[in-house]
């Protein structure tokens, strides 16, 4: 008796409504970009500079009182938010305080932090600063630049790799799928106003890697079946390939999601944003490897005869034995 995600032999048709799938994806991307354009991302201090202080106190948290206490210090833009996590006990009341960059200094001065501590100690005498981070405007500017370069570089490198191993149509399909995943992830971060910091960029790159992993497995089967079924129409070959790999695609996504959900629920609030990005990425990545990457491949068409010697490169790993 086996637990099965999908039946042994599936014959779903993924391409009859291919325009619909592309339309849905395109609409989602437009919505995501619109949200990004209108609301913008809730950048963390990594990207906008400034200081965050994580406070912990046994007293119940009163955000209003904190705000009033800090107003007198004249620190400019101050954002205070309460942090919730199921692992916190009743005497763990955690808040994040974000202070805008101060005009005169790159990083925040100790005097400022001390004054914040003194002001808050009047509200909650036992307050502790469990972490303090301060990033100057110079570094934050560079971090944005590095992050953008990293994501573009990753997508570029992948484009080249797939192009070398497959054909350019595959590379375009894979990259459109990646752009789709990255855009949707940025979209949900902007829509839900989840803090977007350096770790999220790492998550984005991982999504790129994961989504690609899925796409490549499907493409690998497409390549194999294109040789096997030389006479069948492309649509049929693609459908066969996706159906054959469907069980694997869902299995892997499911185990990865199991692991990520455990981390999301139990991993603590510090990395929750990061894990959320990855969880979301696995879901959209799985969707996009079928409904974006393969559909694009169908749309572009592909060279059929893979048995020519110049394309034998695709099988060079096939004879390795253990």
């Amino acid at each position: 008796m086996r637990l099965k995600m999908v039946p042994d032999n599936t014959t779903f048709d993924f391409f009859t409504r291919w325009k619909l799938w592309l339309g849905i994806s395109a609409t989602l991307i437009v919505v995501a970009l619109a949200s990004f354009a209108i609301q913008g991302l809730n950048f963390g201090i990594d990207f906008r500079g400034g200081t965050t202080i994580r406070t912990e106190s046994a007293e119940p948290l009163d955000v209003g009182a904190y705000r009033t206490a800090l107003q007198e210090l004249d620190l400019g833009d101050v954002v205070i938010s309460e942090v919730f996590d199921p692992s916190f006990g009743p005497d763990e009341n955690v808040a994040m305080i974000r202070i805008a960059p101060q005009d005169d200094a790159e990083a925040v001065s100790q005097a400022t932090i001390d004054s914040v501590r003194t002001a808050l100690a009047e509200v909650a005498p036992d307050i502790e600063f469990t972490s303090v981070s301060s990033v100057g405007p110079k570094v934050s500017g560079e971090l944005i630049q590095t992050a953008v370069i990293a994501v573009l570089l990753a997508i570029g490198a992948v484009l080249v790799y797939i192009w070398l191993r497959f054909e350019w149509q595959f590379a375009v399909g894979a990259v459109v799928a990646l752009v789709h995943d990255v855009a949707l992830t940025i979209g949900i971060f902007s829509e839900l106003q989840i803090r977007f910091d350096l770790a999220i960029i790492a998550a984005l790159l991982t999504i790129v890697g994961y989504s690609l992993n899925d796409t490549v497995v499907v493409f690998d089967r497409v390549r194999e079946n294109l040789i096997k079924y030389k006479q069948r129409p492309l649509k049929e070959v693609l459908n066969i390939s996706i159906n054959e790999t469907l069980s694997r695609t869902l299995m892997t996504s499911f185990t990865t999601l199991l692991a990520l959900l455990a981390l999301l629920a139990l991993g603590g609030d510090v990395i929750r944003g990061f894990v959320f990005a990855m969880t979301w990425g696995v879901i959209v990545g799985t969707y996009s490897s079928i409904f974006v990457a393969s559909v694009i491949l169908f749309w572009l068409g592909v060279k059929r005869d893979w048995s020519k010697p110049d394309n034998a490169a695709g099988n060079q790993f096939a004879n390795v034995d253990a």
Partner: protein
Amino acid sequence: MLQIDLWKRLLIWGVVLAGVLLATPNVFYGRVERHNDAVAAIEREGATEALREDAAAWPSWAPSGLVNLGLDLRGGAHLLAEVQVEDVYASRLEALWPEIRDALRDLRDTVGTVRLQDGPADELRVAISEPAGMAQALEAIRALASPVSSSTALAQGGSNDIEVSGSDGVITVTLSDAERAAVDERTLQQALEIIRRRIDEVGTREPTIQRQGADRILIQVPGVGSAQELKDIIGTTAQLTFQPVVGRASDADAQPGVGEEVLPSMDEEGVYYTLDRSPVVTGEELVDAQPSFDQNGRPAVTFRFDATGARRFGDYTAQNIGSPFAIVLDDEVISAPVIQSHIPGGSGIITGNFTIEESTNLAVLLRAGALPAGLEFLEERTIGPELGADSIEAGKLATGVAFALVLIYMAAAYGLFGIFANIALILNIGLLFGLLSLIGATLTLPGIAGIVLTVGMAVDANVLVFERIREELKTARGPARAIELGYEKALSAIVDANITTIITAIILFAMGSGPVRGFAITLGFGILTSVFTAIFVTRLLIVTWYERRRPKTITV
């Protein structure tokens, strides 16, 4: 058909065994850490009973490499400092002015009077009253230039250190690009070295002190209470001078004459010295300082001057036998011994009421000297140890649960083969930790996420193979052939899929910093170990099982 050579089997089990052995110290983290610290301490300052006991907590023949915990897990402080190299350019140019003045003074007849003008900090502007003598003046100043001495300058064709130009009776002297590069290099090296020594001095575990880019230094020190504390450690400058003593008084209000100053004594309460403000020798002329003991067996510091310092020190002591001479550290008089005799050779000893620890600290501070340029802190982070401990707890719990869920699911989905995959998955985590311990990688909170992600994704290669075996079972002749074909045909998908993920891990590692880099490391190595276990270990398990049982049919 399904055959694996004996040597390959041994090799595979050997690798797995080595990985798991290397990983074991992490299971006994606290104990091994105590052992490692004690061993290091014994090596440094000799064995004591307590240290020996700690060292015995873990057998010395066993592997003792641990995965380092990053700041976000251990707590500590992180600073990104920018070295203000412009300061050094400016002082370098300032130092040129006396030489230029002297050179031009010799040409007074042709260039007229010479005056220093205000200008930007990276330029030295000299005005001459007779513009007609410009050509000669420029030539005289150019003669002062010397070739840049650094390895990078050689590549640039041995250029000179200064560039001189003149117009309208004003001569502008700037540092050449090659000289600036050389100055940057020297300054950064020196700053790195000084910061490293000062932090080592405090004796914290595994600090990271790295150069980043052209003029930045990244400093991460676990266990430090706040970024400010770390800044204080780095900012401590030991300024040592040797000054002539003018008088001794019992109150701080003594009126010093012109060019004199009043400084308190370090260990005699209420004693003040009036000193000549200009030092005979300074700590900059020191080449070495070591903790030692004086003739009475009290802790002291011996020091040695460089050639210039030694000459000046020798001359001064020869001319002032019988007068007191003050040794001043950071504006406090350590001691003011009377010069007994001419001290040639440029070495001496500082005695005072030191403990051994103080004399060691003083020697280090003297050796390290002052930072060559100011630091501006661009980024500061402090993570409290409790937050780090909470993160570790949360990480452990999440990893455990993720692990259990995946194991159960794999067994439910693939039965016996799922159990093979699960054994491989457990060994995979062992291998991953072994590899991380071996290279001394740092585990961060995103790094833990990377491990959890690996747990989820590691089964992928197995799933690919198993699914393929299922398919082959429908067509192939017999189970052995199906297993073989399953592995063979799944391989290209496994390789392609994982290479693309490796590419992103490499980019993350190259572009990221700190925690993100930790994530890239666990992700990258996690892929390597999971591909290894899926292709070799699971396969070996399946083949071994198949050889024993010889089943006529199999279900995957």
